[in-house]
């Protein structure tokens, strides 16, 4: 049993989330954008687990499990889309992908 400052955990989660957001906003490569989205989801999960641990309830960890399932399916579909765009356009530049059909 130990004591924490409850604000410190939330501030760490907020910093991680904003770092992921900066990655999404500034990167042009689709793979880096996917990586940054993973960082953001992880930070949201950290906030959930911290809140669950603050009140001693299991709900935060349950929500983390759902976030994990969502992140797994999101990254698999996203990587399939990345492969497909690379085969059709031969580039990973997000700014080059402007046409809805080929």
């Amino acid at each position, binding site marked *: 049993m130990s004591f924490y400052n409850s604000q410190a955990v*939330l501030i760490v989660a907020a910093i991680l989330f904003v770092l992921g957001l*900066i990655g999404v906003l*500034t990167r042009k490569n689709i793979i880096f954008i996917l990586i940054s989205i*993973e*960082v953001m989801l992880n930070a949201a999960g950290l906030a959930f687990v911290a809140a669950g641990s603050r009140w001693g309830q299991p709900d935060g960890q349950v929500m983390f499990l759902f976030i994990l399932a969502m*992140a*797994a399916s999101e990254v698999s*579909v996203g990587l399939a889309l990345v492969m497909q765009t690379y085969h059709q356009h031969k580039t990973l*530049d997000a700014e080059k992908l402007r046409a809805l059909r080929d």
Partner: protein
Amino acid sequence: MPLLFYTSSVIAILATIMVITRYHPIHALLYLVVSFLAVAMIFLSLGAPFVAVLEVILYAGAIIVLLIFVVMMLNLGTDTATQEKQWLQPKVWIGPSLLALVLLSEMVILLMQGDNADMQVTPVEIKQVSISLYKEYIIALELAGFLLMAGIVGAAHIGKHKKKHLHRFLQEENLDAENKKMKQVEETVNN
């Protein structure tokens, strides 16, 4: 222990900064592994051992491996790194990062204004988590199963290597163009 928490959160933040600033995709992924391991350490110090184990196995294991496989299949090497270096000029990243940092400072100020409750961490047992998962959240669990199924089917469908199907008019145009080319070739041969 608070010391454990603070050191691992500093490591997590530094590793994440390295993730979003690297040029080479593999280097970014390796720093991402470090970041996930540090976050797993934070979970462990917050009294959530089950979630920490899942973080290591699923995030640092499965998702990273998936990303590394795609990077290897697309053969992203030093060319990509030089391209990234060209793309990531200061004038590109300074504006969004400054605005995001302003938002972050606002959020930190808001968080600091609340009453500073010292948090007493008691580990939440795995048994409690699983009972709650299969009792109160059973519908959400089934929906997560649907989501995973749809993700698998969608990934398999999108990732299939398709032949390019042209519309029939376009196909005829192409055939005409090919016929013209053939005729030209025949004419040149005859001449």
